[in-house]
């Protein structure tokens, strides 16, 4: 029976074959290509969720990139998909508040928080239970419910799915700077969920349902690629890797201490760095491997590490068995059964 990677290859191959049958060679047009020559990524230590310290770390992260922030409207998109008091599902509210403060200190004219939760429709509960409500009141920041935002129709320049177009929220499309703020997590369908998968939350539930069902039918990895390729707004990414989630993520996994924030403008490179932090080989993850061809840089050879070396914080996340083959191959010295890898 075909394994998961085999299935993904088949699906991707099928899409590409369909494109070929239509006379194209690839499931994207030139309009979708945004792969930069090189992609800077910064991994900065953040040992806990102390907000004062986080403001400093976020400001340091912003300062490592040539971002236009002053006088701009910044939209922060955290991951707020579900709430479980026992879990670490969502981007920590202290980090969101710290980012609001940091962008304001950098001169942003306005900073709003925007999300379209994918499972629950009860935003009041999600926002209050997760602790975000209190932080919104403290910071005076506005929350925009992307599930019910006004939308614009965007024709897709990629054809990983057969959707052809997407309705996307104007709050996102009209941002001067759009910041994806995912949690560093494993994902039981895609392997990992980071900056790019976090974009499922911008898809308005009022049009696509709860969960974002149309995307599931269209293919999760294919949808990740189409949505991210459709976003031409200036982007930045801040990954909450203070506490990550391993195992059966993105909802039912367990907390894993990593102690970092990851920054970068290229979401492909940021996700590759995040995947690497969890012990994955980015180019073995279906959507990153595809995105590397046109949207960004998933290969370490085209990534410029700023801040701390990623390898210093690499943590071997526990994954579901079907994703074991996406992990970085252990070096001979670390391989199970070797002298160095033996626990005996």
């Amino acid at each position: 029976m075909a394994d998961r990677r085999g299935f993904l290859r088949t699906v991707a191959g099928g899409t590409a074959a369909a494109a070929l049958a239509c006379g194209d060679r690839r499931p994207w047009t030139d309009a979708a290509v945004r792969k930069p020559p090189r992609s800077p990524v910064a991994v900065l230590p953040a040992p806990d969720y102390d907000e004062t310290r986080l403001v400093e770390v976020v400001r340091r992260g912003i300062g490592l990139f040539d971002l236009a922030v002053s006088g701009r409207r910044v939209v922060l998109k955290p991951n707020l998909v579900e709430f479980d008091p026992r879990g670490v599902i969502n981007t920590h509210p202290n980090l969101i508040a710290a980012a609001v403060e940091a962008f304001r200190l950098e001169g942003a004219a306005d900073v709003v928080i925007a999300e379209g939760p994918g499972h629950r429709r009860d935003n009041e509960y999600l926002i209050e239970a997760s602790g975000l409500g209190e932080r919104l009141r403290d910071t005076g920041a506005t929350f925009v419910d992307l599930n019910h935002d006004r939308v614009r129709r965007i024709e897709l320049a990629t054809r990983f799915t057969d959707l052809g177009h997407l309705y996307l929220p104007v709050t996102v499309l009209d941002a001067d700077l759009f910041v994806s703020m995912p949690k560093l997590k494993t994902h039981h369908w895609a392997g990992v969920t980071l900056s790019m998968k976090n974009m499922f939350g911008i898809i308005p539930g009022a049009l696509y349902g709860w969960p974002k069902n149309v995307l599931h039918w269209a293919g999760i990895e294919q949808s990740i690629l189409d949505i991210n390729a459709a976003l031409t707004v200036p982007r930045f990414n801040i990954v909450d890797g203070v506490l990550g989630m391993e195992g059966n993520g993105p909802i039912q996994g367990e907390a894993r201490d990593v102690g970092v924030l990851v920054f970068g403008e290229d979401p492909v490179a940021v996700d590759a760095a995040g995947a690497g932090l969890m012990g994955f080989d980015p180019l073995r993850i279906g959507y990153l491997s595809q995105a590397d061809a046109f949207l960004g840089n998933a290969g370490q050879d085209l990534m410029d590490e700023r801040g701390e070396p990623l390898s210093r914080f690499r943590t071997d996340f526990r994954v579901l068995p079907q994703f074991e083959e996406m992990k970085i191959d252990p070096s001979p010295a670390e391989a199970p059964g070797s002298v160095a890898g033996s626990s005996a």
Partner: protein
Amino acid sequence: MNRAVEQLLDIRSEDGGFGPYPGSDSRTEASAVAALALLRAGGPDAAERAAAAIGWLEARQLASGAWPLGPGQDTPHWSTSLAVLALAYAETGDPAALAVGARWLLEEEGRGQPWWVSVLYRLFPERRNVALDANLIGWPWASGTFSWVEPTSYALLALKRVPAADADRAAARISEAEGLLADRACVGGGWNYGNRTVLGEDLWPYPDTTAAALFALADRADLPEVAAALDVLPEMALETGSILALGMAALALAMHGRDANALRERLDEALAAWESGEIRALAWAALGLADTPNPLEIPVG
């Protein structure tokens, strides 16, 4: 009038409808639930109070019988069920409009899984990632997609409240949708968006979707899933504490003859402290607090 109704009246749009949030463009869902709440508030002025919202709904019905999401956004049509329920309760509109709405609901179907997937799962059940019967058809959020708990619940309720011309077809769809809701119930009781177990791990229920399913199954007290949901709902709603959860849960408990006073007391407190938020939540809160005839009651016989 309860305080939620007063707040609703303060924030309706100039066009008579209601949007998801104060100041946003009117949409069908919020307008329909708000219309139900304004009507249920009772008193001699009830019809007049709700007239603008009912008028907004009547003017937006599409030729197909469905309702759009809102002006400028024809699809998807999942809020049709709520518009049908509002017009049925108002009893002021054109009966033909209601009939064509019910007919559209009867024709709208969720998407089943391809036959070859069914065969695959029968041969290799261990390959099934989610524990549900994908061959049971209910109603989807968007046409041509999978059936989920909330749209199925509202459509089921609407078909029970507004008999369709094709009674045999309606009976078959009602029966299948009831089976779908029973199949999707969470282990331990209640419903979430529609997945009870993923990759062998049980998922937890939500109060609002549990209440929606209980509205639709108010005439099916014989189902064990109904009893289990009624047992877990009060505590779940109190723990959640949002006006949406408390309002919908209070209404569901009352529909099943259970005591909802504790939830209503908590809801009243929550509303006193509630700042501006989702209008849909406010409307369900108003419905949960009211003690006038229930607009969602399923006719007997």
